């Protein structure tokens, strides 16, 4: 699973920055096309819910998703990892 902020819904209130126990959400710096400073994700793979949601079969922490007043935070299924053929040049 992958943590995603929906930029078309986010209004930049930074409530997620306040509540995330891993400080994955960081205040953004650049305004987007709509003039809203959307928070940026700092190493989102640390999120427990991303890693263990499928294993436990339930949402583990999910406080950012619950507190987000604009329903902008959700988890997305990632495409399964595909092995790539790597040519090693000597």
């Amino acid at each position: 699973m992958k943590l995603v902020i929906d930029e078309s819904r986010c209004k930049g209130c930074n409530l997620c920055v306040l509540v995330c126990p891993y400080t994955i959400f960081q205040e953004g710096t650049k305004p987007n096309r709509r003039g809203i400073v959307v928070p940026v994700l700092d190493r989102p793979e640390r999120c427990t819910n991303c890693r263990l949601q499928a294993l436990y079969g339930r949402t583990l922490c999910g406080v950012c998703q619950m507190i987000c007043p604009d329903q902008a935070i959700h988890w997305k299924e990632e495409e399964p990892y595909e092995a790539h053929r790597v040519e090693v040049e000597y």
Partner: protein
Amino acid sequence: MTSARDWLRTDRLPHIYCTGCGNGTVINCTLAAISGMGWERDETVFVSGIGCSSRAPGYIQTDSLHTTHGRALAFATGVKLAKPDLNVVVFTGDGDLAAIGGNHFIHACRRNVDMTVVCMNNQIYGMTGGQGSPTTPMGAQSTTTPYGSAEAAFDLAELAVAAGANYVARWTAYHVKELTKAIATGLQTPGLSFIEVMTQCPTNYGRRNKQRRVSDMIEHMRTHALLIEKKRRLESEGTPIPEGMFTVGELVRRARPAMGVRR
């Protein structure tokens, strides 16, 4: 089992609430609790009055009633008594419930009609431009109280306890997990369940009360929330309770005879 996302009307999003408004959080928590109940969309009705909070049913994919100011509970009583099989959830605000609909509120509690009332208390009339409401705390600034409110605020949860609601709880928009649990308990309880949620209104309340940023309002709610168990303990010990605190937690759970329940 549906997820909370399935209940949202995604074509209406993003909603009209201001940046950092707590009403969206309350919608999330309510939908999470409802999706845990396993209800069908056709069997659930959302009723609301007038105000910021009462726009919430417009973002939920069920049948809803957007009624006149303060009369949400009167309409909801009618819905429940005409069709007792429907699950009725009422979204209302503090101006809607405490000011103009005060009488409907106490009588709905007295009749103990089987429904869940979620009151988003932002302590001000947010939509009309920040007028003082009955829940504006003493000393707080608003457009109609420029020298600070001189009146004591209404304690809605205690009012519901006194009027006879079956389940009464109060949480804030910061305590999302506890709030979801409280709403879920309220949905399961027969009779009127009243859940008061203190929400932040940075645009109209915070801006005039030195809490301009959303984080300031959240911090204020976090530090000024006092658990009901702790309050009772402090009272029994005789320790004075600090100024400006409000109680959170489950105030009452009882089984008075309810109206509108199929036997």
